[in-house]
């Protein structure tokens, strides 16, 4: 049951949107209607049933529907099927309620305590719930029947206890995750007692998955109860769906239609619980309804025109546009011309890259600086053809070495990535796959680009690791990503990026997640590799120090536009645009350090 658990509620402000998502899902709405109807019938049943459910009219035995006063006919002893169905609703609802409440009360409480307090609570709780899980439920229930007799509610409560592990394990895991969040630390520092932290911060955050689990369990409860009654472990004096199914089954050759009614009721209600649970999960995960290419095309065309649709979906040209010969002499290595990238959501369209143009010459290092949200990374991803699926390329062109990247089939672009242009990411750790060794990932990339044999590729990978300053290449080659430091991981990724001698290196905040001393070393490494391979380099960064250290030219980007451009020395000495001035003014480098403490008491007085 733990598989496919939705994420811990991350964005409750989206609650209204989530409700809307559920209401737009026809299956979910139908399920809700059926479940509400069930509850209503369970409550007002005694007043709406047309006949007393246990009253016998012998002349209506096995009567077909619409006979006498029996809308759905009579059963094998001449009782009204509709009335019995209505009367059985309460039992089913009670079963679902009791089992779910008991299971949730035990499992959620246990999971919260074990997950939050850990240590002994965790070992003890895990032991208890593991034992519960090992108990054979149906056997215990049958044994119980011989002791307490036909008491469906007791049976459901016992089954609830046995089902509690279904809540315990996921709640424990989620609680441990939330326990590590800074806001829980902040609550502890605020002086909140533990029970309040668990109740407010932890439970509030994990309640989504709990509700979904409860929906699934309620559906299961009704089936299990019906199964028990079908086996004859119910109270024969009280009408129940399972009991009716059993009666109809005995009667299947005489009046097969009698099986339909209780079967339909059971099927609809259990299906409703499961479907509702699914809808809740989808809504909380924000699983978007996937569009086909045609739908997507139509949408983009309506919003941004046919060209945008062609550029985004790469449908403009089927022809290979990779030129055989080199670009015309004097042309820059990379030229971006009027590139515009937008996103479209329920809140409207947002242009994140707004018609930018830039050039990177062979052997030149260009810095693209700006604050978060300026669109720097989007520009790089557009060049690499690695924009997220939701991004829309509205217009512009990107020329790399004489080939136009935006109007190139994906297959051709893939051939350029790694070979002609390479990429160094911001988060080295998340860009290495934890389940493969460093070496195998490097070899895989090299072989994909060059078609080398494995042995050759391994040699190249080892020599690259050595080149990027890893002291024991053979050892690192066999390491998994978690066995190396962040600085080492970045060296590995740089080794992979430059292994196939690309002519353009795109680096997205390559040193942001590293310590200053490691940052300085990585910048040294990038500088020497750039000189050695005479690469063009486009570095995205928010750090003017990186620009000062490495770049020849700098572009300042703000809200999707390039507001200033020039040689590094000029822009630092004499920024023209107000925004560049403000950014440079925010730098703390030459700020005067604070002097002695002004005594607090004096300040207060």
């Amino acid at each position: 049951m733990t598989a496919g658990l939705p994420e811990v509620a991350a964005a409750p402000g989206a609650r209204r949107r989530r409700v809307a998502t559920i209401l737009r899902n026809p299956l979910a709405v139908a399920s809700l209607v059926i479940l509400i109807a069930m509850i209503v019938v369970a409550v007002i049943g005694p007043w709406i049933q047309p006949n007393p459910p246990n009253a016998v009219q012998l002349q209506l035995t096995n009567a077909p529907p619409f006979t006498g006063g029996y809308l759905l006919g009579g059963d094998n002893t001449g009782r009204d099927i509709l009335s019995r169905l209505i009367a059985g609703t309460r039992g089913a609802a009670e079963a679902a309620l009791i089992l779910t409440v008991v299971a949730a009360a035990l499992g959620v409480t246990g999971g919260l305590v074990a997950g939050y307090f850990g240590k002994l609570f965790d070992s003890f709780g895990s032991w208890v719930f593991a034992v519960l899980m090992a108990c054979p439920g149906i056997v215990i229930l049958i044994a119980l029947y011989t002791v307490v007799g036909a008491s469906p509610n007791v049976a459901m409560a016992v089954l609830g206890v046995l089902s509690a592990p279904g809540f315990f394990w996921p709640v424990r895991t989620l609680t441990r995750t939330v326990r590590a969040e800074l806001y829980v630390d902040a609550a502890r520092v605020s002086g909140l007692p533990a029970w309040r932290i668990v109740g407010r911060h932890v439970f509030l955050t994990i309640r989504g998955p709990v509700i979904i689990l409860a929906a699934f369990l309620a559906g299961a409860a009704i089936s299990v109860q019906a199964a028990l009654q079908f086996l004859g472990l119910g109270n024969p004096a009280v009408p129940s769906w399972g009991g009716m199914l059993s009666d109809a089954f005995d009667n299947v050759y005489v009046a097969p239609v009698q099986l339909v009614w209780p079967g339909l009721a059971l099927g609809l209600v259990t299906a409703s619980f499961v479907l509702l649970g699914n809808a809740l999960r989808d809504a909380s995960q924000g699983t978007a309804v996937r569009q086909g290419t045609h739908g997507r095309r139509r949408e983009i065309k309506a919003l941004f025109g046919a060209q945008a649709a062609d550029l985004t979906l790469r449908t403009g040209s089927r022809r290979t546009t990779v030129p055989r010969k080199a670009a015309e002499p004097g042309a820059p290595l990379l030229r971006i011309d009027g590139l515009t990238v937008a996103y479209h959501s329920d809140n409207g369209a947002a242009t994140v890259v707004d018609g930018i143009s830039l050039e990177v010459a062979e052997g030149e290092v260009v810095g693209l600086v700006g604050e978060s949200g300026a669109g720097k990374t989007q520009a790089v991803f557009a060049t690499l053809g690695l924009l997220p699926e939701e991004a829309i390329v509205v217009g512009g062109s990107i020329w790399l070495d004489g080939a136009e990247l935006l109007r190139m089939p994906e297959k051709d672009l893939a051939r350029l990535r790694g070979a002609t242009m390479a990429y160094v990411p911001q988060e080295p750790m998340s860009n290495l796959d934890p389940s493969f060794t460093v070496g195998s990932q490097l070899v895989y990339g090299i072989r994909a680009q060059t078609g080398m044999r494995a042995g050759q590729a391994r040699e190249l990978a080892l020599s690259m690791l050595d080149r990027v300053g890893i002291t024991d290449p053979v050892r690192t080659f066999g390491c998994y990503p978690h066995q190396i430091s962040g600085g080492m991981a970045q060296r590995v990724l740089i080794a992979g990026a430059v292994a196939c001698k690309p002519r353009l290196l795109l680096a997205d905040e390559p040193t942001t997640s590293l310590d200053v001393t490691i940052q300085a070393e990585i910048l040294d490494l990038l500088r020497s590799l750039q000189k050695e391979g005479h690469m063009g380099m486009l570095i995205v960064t928010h750090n003017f120090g990186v620009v000062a250290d490495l770049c020849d030219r700098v572009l300042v980007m703000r809200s999707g536009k390039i507001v200033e451009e020039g040689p590094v020395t000029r822009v630092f000495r004499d920024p023209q645009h107000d925004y560049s001035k403000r950014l440079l003014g925010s730098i703390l480098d030459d700020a005067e350090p604070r002097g002695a403490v002004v005594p607090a008491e004096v300040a207060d007085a």
Partner: protein
Amino acid sequence: MPEAAAGPLLVTDELRVAYGRGRKAHEVLHGVSVSVGPGETLGLVGESGSGKTTLGRAVLGLVPASGGRISFAGEEITQLPARKRRILAKDVQVVFQDPYSSLNPAMKIQDILREPLLAQGLRRADANERVRELLDRVAMPADTVDRYAREFSGGQRQRIAIARALALNPRLIVCDEPVSALDLSTQRRVLDLLIEIQERSGVAYLFISHDLAVVRHVSHRVAVMYQGEIVELGPARQVTGQPRHSYTKRLWAANLVADPQEQSRRRDLRRSLDAV
């Protein structure tokens, strides 16, 4: 605060912290002694893994000390029972690095800010009034209260986190990399807000950061941590301007400056230091 006027507010004395137990124990602080006076900012710089965050968490009572002592306003707080620790919450508060995970996404800002106040026994109406004051203090609009954290930018969230730290009028705030997740211009504004609050209220900061320039901007004194020990401690001007310890010198030389000529000088200096 009569008793605070005399000595330092916070003192750690040969503080040791180890993670894990028994033979697997791994000590990350090897006897750290620092002090923070009332109204003072002690900057704590070091690389990741140097133990600077652990020192902050030990002061906050989030990790237990395995040796040494921590005292606050003259009273030992190294091992406090949960109830006393909660009373100390009035005096010692925190602003964390990541404004995205330090505010509960499932709660409205109103509830986040009111929580510590209600926990200390304030009446609801008074707490609401105080929340309005706090938001005003950190220059956030009043309608902030009805919104969720996700509706705010990083800088705004950090202002809200600062408001939460200020709620109980603490005498010490542990600031753990409070601006390193923020953009340059936002960074400057948040730092200036912290300084302004200090000048008005006399709160002391234990200010943890990996960034020398940031520490220099806010600190009166600076301590440099390396592999679980303090290697240099002194006035901000000296430690961040003319460092004496070889590690601090290397750190200083590795720190990038936004000036191509100066940066190239630093680079040469760093290489000459590394070559030694």
